[in-house]
């Protein structure tokens, strides 16, 4: 029963994330990839994603703090972040990345900074949700293991 409740909670959480546009269809597919053979797949990918994203955000912070921004560097980092976020289905983060790429294409530092903040915002938001999700997930997994 507890598992069912947790699963509902999990589903609702994912649903709200969908509703808010934080996630898109890709996340569904990601979830589909997780099965008994690969029970921690989503967890694993999310962790990877978070680490990667944090690294990139750190880099972006560093680059944006320079007097003369190297827009091509910026672009390559954002491209990475965009790639990983679209892989994971983080829709809004992806949009934010697109914004930043456009800004950096235009060599507009102001807009870059603006877009970067929105990226950071989206990421923080996403991470909070992901953490909750992972906690629920882990509890489900541990309960299932116990049952077995």
């Amino acid at each position: 029963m507890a598992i069912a409740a947790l699963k509902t909670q999990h589903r609702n959480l994912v649903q709200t994330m969908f509703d808010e546009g934080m996630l898109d269809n890709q996340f569904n597919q990601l979830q589909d990839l997780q099965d008994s053979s690969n029970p921690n797949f989503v967890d694993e990918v999310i962790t990877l994603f978070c680490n990667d994203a944090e690294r990139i955000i750190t880099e972006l912070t560093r680059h944006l703090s320079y007097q003369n921004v190297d827009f091509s560097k910026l672009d390559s980092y954002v491209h990475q972040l965009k790639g990983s976020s679209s892989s994971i289905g983080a829709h809004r983060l992806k949009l934010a990345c697109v914004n930043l790429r456009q800004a950096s294409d235009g060599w507009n530092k102001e807009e870059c900074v603006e877009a970067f903040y929105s990226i950071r915002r989206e990421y923080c938001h996403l991470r909070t949700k992901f953490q909750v999700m992972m906690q629920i997930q882990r509890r489900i997994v541990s309960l299932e293991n116990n049952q077995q």
Partner: protein
Amino acid sequence: MGLKLKQSYHHSVTVKVNEQMGTKRGYTFIQANRAWLPKFLLLWVMVMAFLSTWIYKKMDADNKVRRKEVLSSMCDQRARMLQDQFSVSVNHVHALAILVSTFHYYKDPSAIDQETFAEYTARTAFERPLLSGVAYAERVKHSEREKFERQHGWTIKTMKREPSPIRDEYAPVIFSQETVSYIESLDMMSGEEDQENILRARATGKAVLTSPFRLLGSHHLGVVLTFPVYKSKLPPKPTVEERIEATAGYLGGAFDVESLVENLLGQLAGNQAILVNVYDVTNSSDHLIMYGHQNQDGDLALLHESKLDFGDPFRKHQMICRYHQKAPTSWTALTTAFLFFVICLLVGYILYGAAIHIVKVEDDFHGMQELMVRAEAADVAKSQFLATVSHEIRTPMNGILGMLALLLDTDLSSTQRDYAQTAQVCGKALITLINEVLDRAKIEAGKLELETVPFDLRSILDDVLSLFSEKSRNKGLELAVFVSDKVPEMVMGDPGRFRQIITNLVGNSVKFTERGHIFVKVHVAENPKPIDDAKAESCLDGGSDEAALISGGRQFNTLSGYEAADERNSWDSFQLLVTAEALQNDASEKMTVADEASRSVTLMVSVEDTGIGIPLIAQDRVFTPFMQADSSTSRNYGGTGIGLSITKCLVELMGGHISFISRPQVGSTFSFTTVFGRLKKASRSDMKKSNAEDLPSGFRGLKAIVVDGKPVRAAVTRYHLKRLGMLVEIANNVKIAASACGKNGSSCGSKIQPDIVLVEKDSWLSGEYSCLSLRMLDRKQNGDLFKLPNMILLATNITNAELEKAKAAGFADTTIMKPLRASMVAACLQQVLETGKSQPGKGMPNGSSVLGSLLCGKRILVVDDNMVNRRVAAGALKKFGAAVECAASGKAALKLLQLPHSFDACFMDIQMPEMDGFEATRRIRMLESQANEEMNGDTEKGSGRKDEWHLPILAMTADVIHATYDECLKCGMDGYVSKPFEEENLYQAVAKFFKTKPISDS
């Protein structure tokens, strides 16, 4: 950077100012010579004074000439008359002389005595008007004196009435006119003048005149005329001696010149004006006056002399005329000149005044212009300052926010968390405000540029809605978007700014609305086509009546049933719009052609809410920055009121205009138009894939029934489902839906066999028989062995109890929460359909199983520098049974792919640092071709064909535009899959290469 910017701003400002000053240099002539103006005036006055003097002089001179002419003519006239009369008199005296000689001397005895003479002369006096009288004096020699005295009986007397002294000869008067009888017996030789006269007369034989003298008996000036009378006939050319010898006597007459002239002048006109003097000028040094006073006043400046010839060549006379008065000042000339001067003076002054005025006005104008330039510069500076400062503020603010976010992630007590969260919320609000100020400043400084990129309007609207979904859900608001079918899928414009406008308007609406709905509607602005009322009527099919019945109270045909400010948005017109579009779509071929032709499309966007509305007094300053409806608004709802002004600016930048209709306590409807570019058809398909949010195509062709009592809301739902490619029917309530299902199921199943039934929560709850009918529906479906359509509940907010109830009634677990978004609806539907599992024939399960068989046991290399992507791709491929290895860069991949290797396929990311996918592929192909050549050389053909090295390489790319695809093929790749993986896509790509192998394997 900021400093640099500032400098460039400064530069631009000064340039601008200079430019404006430059234009100011366009002085007029007057302005250029302003210092000369008083001098001009003075010069003018002087010239005019000179001119008027000249005019006066000219006129005066004319006058004088005329006066002189008049004088001379008058004078000559007088002289002539005098002369004529004089000569007449002289002639007569001459005649008398002949008379005397004839009758006195030639007759013997004399026929004339004193009496006869007196009478004759008296009777012929009228012939000699100038003579006071005539007398005849006989020449008496001294020798004859006694004889003479005896004969006559009197002695000869001198002029002084004394007996005459002894002289050579005498000239005693013997005959005299009565008027001069007193001179009888007087010796004319005794008077000096007379004697001289007599001597001259007898010598010449002509009439001679004396110089003027006072006449005897009267005190008038006069002259005496003397004529000689000869005794015998003179020889033809007599000498003087002969003449003297022949002389018998002398006839004399006295001219009383004074009275004579007086009489004469009296007869003439202009007598009064003219002053006449007659002079004897025989002695040129001493003029003797004959008439007139010597020292009379009169105009001494002007006189005229006329010669007088009285017939005595020895005597010379002349007449001098003068005007009595001095020449009168010529008033005409004076006034003319004066008036001329005055007029010129006035004209000059008027011109001067005008010039001064012009100078003053121009000075003012330039002053104003300068002030304006300065004000504009100040305004620009202000905006720049704002922009700079906002930007500078944002940097630390973001630091603060970031730190707060990090702080919130740490372990905090609830109080601390509360504080930190409050700080974060405040910070966010501040950032938003600063951003808005920055935007506004940017717009004002003219620095905001719109980009023109293709974008999907619908997905942007969905995104905006998702932003407000939570808020609206908390407030229980219906939030919906509807985009008309005619709006092109992709348009060219600035998605960011469009999003900002919509966000602003919707944000406002959400803020000020407590109940009801917020409805965003987009359609193509065009001249509305007239549609028959009948057609509109038929569209309503009684649905609205029913809705009114249900609520029992006032019910409006809007999204939520609340009244909206702008009636135009009500269902009636909305329906008209929708049907009109449907009608037009029938004949759409031409339409689309026409649409393609036009380069741009004007969209009409309206955001309707049922909020508190805008007070009437505040409606005209809604778009003014920092003006909220009233101060209480900001107290109640917060905000600065800058949003709408930015929105207005943005809309105007986008070539549209914004307006609103608002009724207090009813709601507001903001509408704006924007102009977007159309995409060319060719480029559209490419761009669509890359930029648009991809909606899953799995629902294409599914049939759905939407059960909703509110037509507007149903239309919105239909719109979203249509975007997913579904066929949608609308039913007003569950009953109709049920019957529709049943009917279709039993009789003409081909028409509509709903896969999904979407029921609006209100409709479900409002019908008391809903549960029943649903059950009925279930039974019927089961009984007829038709598959059960998925029942999905649509709700704005739902309680757990309601959810349970819904589940009990047979609804799917997943409730679609509003606001609807196509992607979200898709996700939910997918969830429902998957859990239902009752649907065979869907591509996905099929695809995955096939994919599994295709990929099972294959060794696949995934090359991607992005760890996450790598992991996901690996996960996806592993799921289908492939053995996956990963490489993080092109170099690593090359290393792994050194021949010989055992990989069956390679998925290659394109964009990688150091060595990108293209390069890596090129190198791999190079290695392969080398190996192949070697092999061919070694083993001839035979087995070579099949074992020829050719590793299928598939590009993984996020942007699937044609150029990229061509590039992929060019460098030797075999295909591409879009990133992130979609099974269908993956299947299609992989199937090409593995089709033959699995068959042979299995």
